[in-house]
């Protein structure tokens, strides 16, 4: 089996007090993610994308259906430790996931929990910090770093664990544009250089464009699944799911509709868009 994550009719409802109806958040998601893929999961607030991420890491156990991580059923408690070793997670708020008071000790935290020998920890921590470009900050206190830097430290903590898959739950939501760029560069590197499967939960279109595959969640179901080019050219479907499209595509799409010109609208980068516009204006 080549999938690292596979869900079958995955359902999840948050527990509620007695006498109330459970509100289903995931309504039967069937999805499989292959090894080495870079998947962006898009969705409006409340579409269930974060809940889905929690299922991949056994933080949330399915209330219906199954979720397999590397062929292990996440519902089996005996698997939980191995599941979390295979799929690690980076959260939205960088402040609430850094445990230690010094950068390098935080990166070492997971390795210490795994019982890795000290010299090996030292080596892996240094490598991970260099990979995210935070090596010179190794002796700093996390609260003195910027949001983007903190998030890169959190990612270094994940790299050091050497998992097969990383799930990032809106890692750039609380960052400024500069921090977002830094973090996204590291995320791409995770996939390309380290060959780690990356699942990026986001609501930024320009981040999703960088992935190899985009999954769009809407009201607890998978609405669309395909390459960025396939997904983002379906402007009407995306807008119906209250999602915006990348600005490059939006410009071309609106021009296309107004003038009845048949423009190619699949410009994912600014350069591509500029080329098309240049031709159009001539």
């Amino acid at each position, binding site marked *: 089996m080549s999938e690292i994550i596979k869900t079958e009719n995955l359902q999840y409802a948050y527990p509620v007090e007695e006498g109330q109806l459970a509100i289903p958040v995931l309504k039967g998601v069937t999805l499989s993610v292959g090894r080495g893929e870079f998947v962006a999961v898009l969705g409006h607030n409340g579409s269930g994308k974060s809940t889905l991420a929690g299922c991949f890491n056994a933080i949330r156990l399915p209330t219906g259906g199954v979720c397999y991580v590397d062929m292990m059923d996440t519902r089996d408690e005996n698997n939980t430790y191995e599941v979390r070793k295979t799929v690690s997670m980076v959260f939205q*708020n960088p402040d609430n996931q850094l*445990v230690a008071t010094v950068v*390098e000790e935080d990166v070492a*935290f997971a390795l210490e*929990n795994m*019982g890795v*020998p*000290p010299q090996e920890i030292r080596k892996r921590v240094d490598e991970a910090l260099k990979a995210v470009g935070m090596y010179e900050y190794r002796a700093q206190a996390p609260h003195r770093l910027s949001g983007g830097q903190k998030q890169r430290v959190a990612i270094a903590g994940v790299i050091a*664990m050497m998992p097969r898959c990383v799930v990032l739950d809106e890692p750039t939501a609380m960052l400024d544009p500069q921090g977002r760029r830094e973090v996204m560069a590291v995320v791409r590197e995770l996939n390309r250089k380290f060959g780690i499967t990356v699942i990026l939960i986001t609501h930024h279109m320009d981040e999703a464009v960088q992935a190899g595959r985009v999954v769009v969640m809407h009201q607890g179901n998978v609405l669309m699944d395909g390459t960025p080019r396939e997904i983002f050219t379906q402007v009407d479907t995306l807008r119906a799911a209250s999602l915006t499209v990348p600005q490059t595509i939006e410009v071309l799409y609106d021009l296309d509709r107004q003038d009845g010109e048949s423009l190619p609208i699949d410009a994912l980068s600014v350069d591509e868009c500029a080329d098309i516009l240049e031709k159009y204006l001539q």
Partner: protein
Amino acid sequence: MLKDITIGQFFPGDSAVHRLDPRVKIVLTIAFIVLLFLAEGPVSYALVLAFLAIIIGISRISPKLVVRGLKPILFIIVFTAVLNLFYTPGEYIWQWGFLHISREGIRTAIFMVVRLMLLIIATSMLTYTTSPIQLTDGLERLLSPLKKLHAPVHELSMMMSIALRFIPTLIEETEKIISAQKARGADFESGSLVQRAKAMIPILVPLFISAFRRADELATAMECRLYRGDVGRTRMKQLKITRVDICAILICAALFAAILVLRRYGL
């Protein structure tokens, strides 16, 4: 005003004081506190003061920071001084009604103030030069014999280090909430003591709620990073007693002996 709180802060560095084994530092700090209460005469205090000054010098921590650490306990220092000044019996040199100042009172007051200040400086030097993780690590290992009695030593040291980690985060948050409430017209500076205490409620409620939320998220993040308590844990930084540690122990032993000798002669 909140930025002034420096107790429990760590200033990274690479001095000999920073490099000392945390276990040695903790034990020596405790020994130093005992020493402070054994010292009686001005010569002893001068010696202890010089010793502390040398340590601050070696550690390259700016003396300004050290003095600033005293601010939060200024009230306690003044209070102790006043109590000792007026309530020590002895040879009165000034009297008014039930108030009196004795020669012994002045002496005790001065010594108490110096003692308290040195106490705070010594303990804050420990936290300034030792990363909280090292500190809790040292404590955990010093207390590890208690694990056999099922005392939750690891859990306590983990809790301590997380608390220390979140002090700056929560201070920042408090400042944000204060600004937010001020922008909505909250008044924290005027009114009686009771009114001012009541004005703190709109700060404390959001602060607590967010602290709980943070705790919840942190717990999830820790679980994701395979935290299972003390089961099969290793440490990146191994503690080792080096030559520097032995030197420090010997120097402190010498100081201890010197103070004991001086005490004999009442100096």
